[in-house]
């Protein structure tokens, strides 16, 4: 695999606090990789490690083939990034902030500033002082700084933060387009699985500094719990019918019948037929899929907000 990002047993400790604990991951070139975790899970520290802003306690990180050390200079002309909040010089205009960044990235033509302003929908705000921008437009400016030099790799911390729904869709489409058409690798940290599942090809889930799971987005569908929920006029009788038929049916706390057997979930019409034949026709029958938020919380050991 041609890797854009590679970490090997990366550890970062601040005193007694282990922010990143033995992180090993690979991000292929051209891939959109979502790095998912709660606040404080270690996402931003990982990003800072990848960008050479903090020293690893142990382990190593490689970005575009270069081993990252603090103060390392080599890969940065090919990397665009947005770390934590999208801060800018408040007294400079949007255009001046981007011009300052252009000057610090040698070799970029001056028209790139106008290009990225247009691309991020900042034309109306180009001459406005950055200190007066809304959160959403400040986020756009942060993304514009990251995209200014057409980088091979984008490392973005919560790229949708502060954007309105239309802005979220716009940025999502922009990142997908960059990956698909220009082969840009996107490594994005987020805490919203629902958002990243629409964008990323692979997802790494980090919790308390450790990588709990890496999965393809396709696997999300397979891994999420599904259940068949049934209601009849006599749920207890219907429950007995299903048990006799060999299904592991349960009565839920709200009095409905729940079946988690794949056979039932795949063929709910068969269950309906059995119940009708037994004289307990369903008044309601549907397949429920675990929502992404619940799935994420279950993965990290928190279910519905309660630690298991």
């Amino acid at each position, binding site marked *: 695999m041609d890797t854009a990002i590679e970490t090997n047993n990366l550890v970062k400790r601040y005193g007694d606090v282990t922010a990143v604990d033995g992180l090993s991951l690979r991000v292929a070139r051209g891939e959109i990789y979502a790095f998912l975790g709660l606040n404080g899970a270690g996402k931003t520290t990982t990003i800072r490690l990848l960008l050479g*802003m903090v020293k690893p306690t142990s382990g190593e990180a490689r970005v575009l083939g270069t081993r990252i050390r603090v*103060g390392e200079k080599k890969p940065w002309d090919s990397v665009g990034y947005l770390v934590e909040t999208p801060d800018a*010089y408040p*007294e400079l205009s949007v255009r001046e902030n981007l011009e300052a960044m252009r000057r*610090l990235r*040698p070799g970029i033509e001056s028209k790139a500033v106008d290009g990225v302003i247009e691309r991020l929908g900042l034309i109306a705000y180009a001459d406005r002082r950055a200190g007066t921008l809304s959160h959403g437009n400040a986020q756009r400016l942060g993304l514009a700084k990251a995209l200014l030099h057409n980088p091979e790799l984008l490392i973005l911390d919560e790229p949708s933060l502060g954007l309105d729904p239309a802005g979220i869709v716009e940025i999502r489409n922009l990142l997908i387009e960059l990956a698909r058409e220009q082969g840009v690798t996107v490594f994005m940290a987020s805490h919203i699985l629902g958002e990243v599942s629409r964008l990323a090809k692979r997802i790494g889930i980090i919790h308390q500094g450790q990588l709990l799971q890496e999965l393809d987005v396709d696997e999300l569908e397979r891994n999420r719990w599904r259940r068949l929920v049934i209601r009849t006029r006599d749920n207890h009788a219907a429950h007995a019918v299903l048990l006799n038929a060999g299904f592991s049916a349960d009565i839920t706390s709200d009095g409905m019948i729940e079946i988690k057997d794949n056979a039932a979930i795949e063929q709910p019409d068969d269950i309906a037929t059995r119940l009708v034949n037994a004289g307990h026709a369903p008044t309601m029958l549907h397949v429920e899929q675990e929502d992404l938020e619940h799935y994420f919380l279950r993965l990290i050991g928190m279910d519905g907000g309660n630690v298991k």
Partner: protein
Amino acid sequence: MNNITQAIWVEMLKARRSRMPLLTALGFSLLPLGGGFFMIVLKDPELARRVGLISAKAQITMGVADWPAYLRFLALANAMGGVILFGFIASWVFGREYSDRTVKDLLALPTSRSAIVFAKFVIVAVWSAALTVFIYLIGLGVGTAVALPPASADTFWQGTITIAISAGLTIALVTPIAFFASAGHGYLLPMGVVVLVMFLTQVIAMAGWGEYFPWSIPALYAQGGNLGTASYVIVILTSVAGIAGTLFWWELADQTH
């Protein structure tokens, strides 16, 4: 270190767009104006008696109202006020990156961190030197306006050299302030250090050890003190330590802001 000229351009843009140059110029312009007031007081004993305490202070500082005394006052005021004001400029140039949380955008660029730090030092030095020139020119205007007795070209030359060298020594001593602004992630720590330095300057100068305390040395020079080589070496070493510490911090310390 690459791309230094562009880094200097960026620092210049940030300084120009802020209100800081105007505020520092306004603040510093009080020095020659205050000096001019002392000159008026010294020239007019009646007024001196009426204002009481201030005239007593003017007598202590300058003695007589003439160009040598006024230029010496400017050199001393620049050396002492510069510790505060130039320190304030260094605090802003370096500390604002932490206060505005913009430092992270400077850390993973093709332009090296050393180049950015160097550019910041250049801006601090140029800004401070420009303020010195500014108050010098105002001082010439004020001295002329209060009709100080004419002086020889040599007097002006000597006065100008004294102001330039004492300002140079003061500017050289802002580098540790830049380190404290970086390590302290903002303005608070460096400004605290400036206040502490001013306090120590007074105490150490009173104890008679001023020629060995870096921040006392420019003022002693401005007063025409007979400084040995050790004093200049101390200023140079302090300045180099400040530069090295700041570079070290930006290049090697964990940057979590």
